[in-house]
């Protein structure tokens, strides 16, 4: 080991600390009683190890319900997006019909319009439909995803015509071609879209914040945001319970990420498009 190598490894360790330290420090603080969390100087090893912050969170907030809500909304939204957009992308990518270019352009142009621009009319529409305060309001809005159509259409387009023609000679109809040829061949694109939709919907915040009022119907993102009134709010709050809530909310994100890491990384590298 020469000096240069050592300094590279020191640098790597430093980078690792920058990314992990905030999480570790929160974890350590969350298992201390409130009066020791704010003890000075900070203690690295808790004097009294306690799970009381965790049980307080679970007692005072429907935390597990929020988590379940998030899981349900994320899974349902992702499935809906996959069904709707693979079908649509097949039509855009593989079929010829009048007005195709116009419709596709209209759809893709919506990529330029962020939710803030239409959130007021969306709110009015959803309340008019009586869908406020329901999971359906979030899942249906998530279903109108444009990114996914865009990615899948360009992938479907790239699949050679010969495969399709061979299948047609064998008597395959369009739906058969779609389900037995296109979908299996599109695994990379479909998994990219799945990962993207998971991240997008799991972290979805602004729309659920507006659409869901009932505390027990909130997804985790919105529920946990109440733990922090912002540093400039006057509300009294406790670090212990906030940090315990944060640590519990980290668990599913990290488990899913670590177990699907390869797909995560490929998904991001393939598209570079979030949301």
């Amino acid at each position, binding site marked *: 080991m020469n000096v240069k190598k050592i300094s*590279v490894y020191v640098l790597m360790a430093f*980078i690792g600390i920058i*990314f992990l330290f*905030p999480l570790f*420090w*929160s974890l350590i603080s969350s298992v201390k009683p409130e009066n020791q*969390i*704010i*003890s000075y100087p*900070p203690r690295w090893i808790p004097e009294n190890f306690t799970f009381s912050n965790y049980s307080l969170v679970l007692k005072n907030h429907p935390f597990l319900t929020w988590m379940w809500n998030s899981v349900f909304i994320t899974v349902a939204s992702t499935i809906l997006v996959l069904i*709707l957009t693979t079908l*649509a992308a097949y*039509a855009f990518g593989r079929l*010829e*019909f009048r007005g*195709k270019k116009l*419709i596709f352009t209209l*759809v893709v142009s*919506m990529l*330029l*319009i*962020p939710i*803030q*621009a*239409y*959130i*007021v*009319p969306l709110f009015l*529409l959803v309340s008019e439909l009586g869908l406020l305060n329901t999971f359906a309001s979030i899942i*249906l*809005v998530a279903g*109108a995803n444009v990114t996914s159509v865009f990615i899948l259409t360009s992938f479907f387009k790239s699949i050679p015509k010969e495969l399709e023609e061979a299948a047609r000679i064998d008597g395959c109809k*369009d739906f058969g071609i779609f389900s037995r040829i296109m979908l299996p061949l599109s695994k990379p694109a479909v998994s990219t879209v799945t990962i993207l939709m998971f991240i997008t919907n799991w*972290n979805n*915040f602004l729309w659920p*914040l*507006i659409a869901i009022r009932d505390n027990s119907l909130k997804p*985790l*993102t919105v529920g*946990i*945001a109440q733990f*922090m*009134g*912002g*540093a*400039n*709010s006057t509300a009294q709050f406790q*670090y212990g319970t*906030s940090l315990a*809530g*944060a640590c519990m*909310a980290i668990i599913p*994100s*990290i488990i899913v*990420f670590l177990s699907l890491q390869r797909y995560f*990384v490929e998904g*991001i590298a393939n598209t*570079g*498009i*979030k949301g």
Partner: protein
Amino acid sequence: MNKQGKIAALFLLPYLLIFTIFRFGPSMAGLFVGFMEWNIVGDAAFAGLDNFEKLFRDPMFYTSLKNTMLFLLMVLPPLVVFSLLLAVLLNQKLRYRNAVRTVSIIPYVLIPAVVGIIWNWLYDNNFGILNYYLKMIGIAPIEWLTNDKYALFSVAIVTVWSYMGYNMILYLAGLQDISKDLYEASTIDGANKFQTFMKITLPLLKPITSMIITLTLINAIQIFDQIFVMTNGGPGTATLTLVQYLYGTAFQNYNLGYGSTLGIAIVVILIVLVQIQSRLFKLDN
């Protein structure tokens, strides 16, 4: 042709239905509502360009625009430069590089509200660990989030921390696409590592840099979650961003018409910035 049209309609119908109702319709209506005088309690009335006149005279709009632009300027350079350097480092054959890669992506997958809670604790004026270590090395403690001089910058640090790993993945993918032959050729030509980086790596990564800048623009202009949790726009209006202002106007004060006007303004700003970005990047080609 006609038969394909019918089949296409079947494939498209479910998506287009949802898309039209929940995306396209509201987007078009957004334009319309922006021209209305509309409070949740009162009836809507057509206000013509009144809302836009109000927008141009609204000091809060300018404050939120200024904050959003400042925020963009704070996060953009580090999100490009640090992510690139990180990717270059982790593209070398090093032990533990996969571990460091994994660790650097973790902040990106966390819920922004959770990231906010964690950092608010680190930033705490009295008991935060950052101020503790600052004091230890003899620097006066900083009011990270409660001083209007630092608050926006403190939030920007957190955003850079969250997104660096994501951009690193994009750069890594780009680096791995560069053919080894090019590097060999330049070594034979006697170029040193720095020259190779400047002459080969950087130019070939240009499309990725361009994409990262565009994505950062889009995300920074729409910054909301982090601010909502960490500072709620405060102290005063020091971290009030465009979307935070829109949220307050439309959904806390229920001024739906003007809220929608702000939404239109955000889209226009976004499109202008993305246009400028793509022009600049084409110009030096």
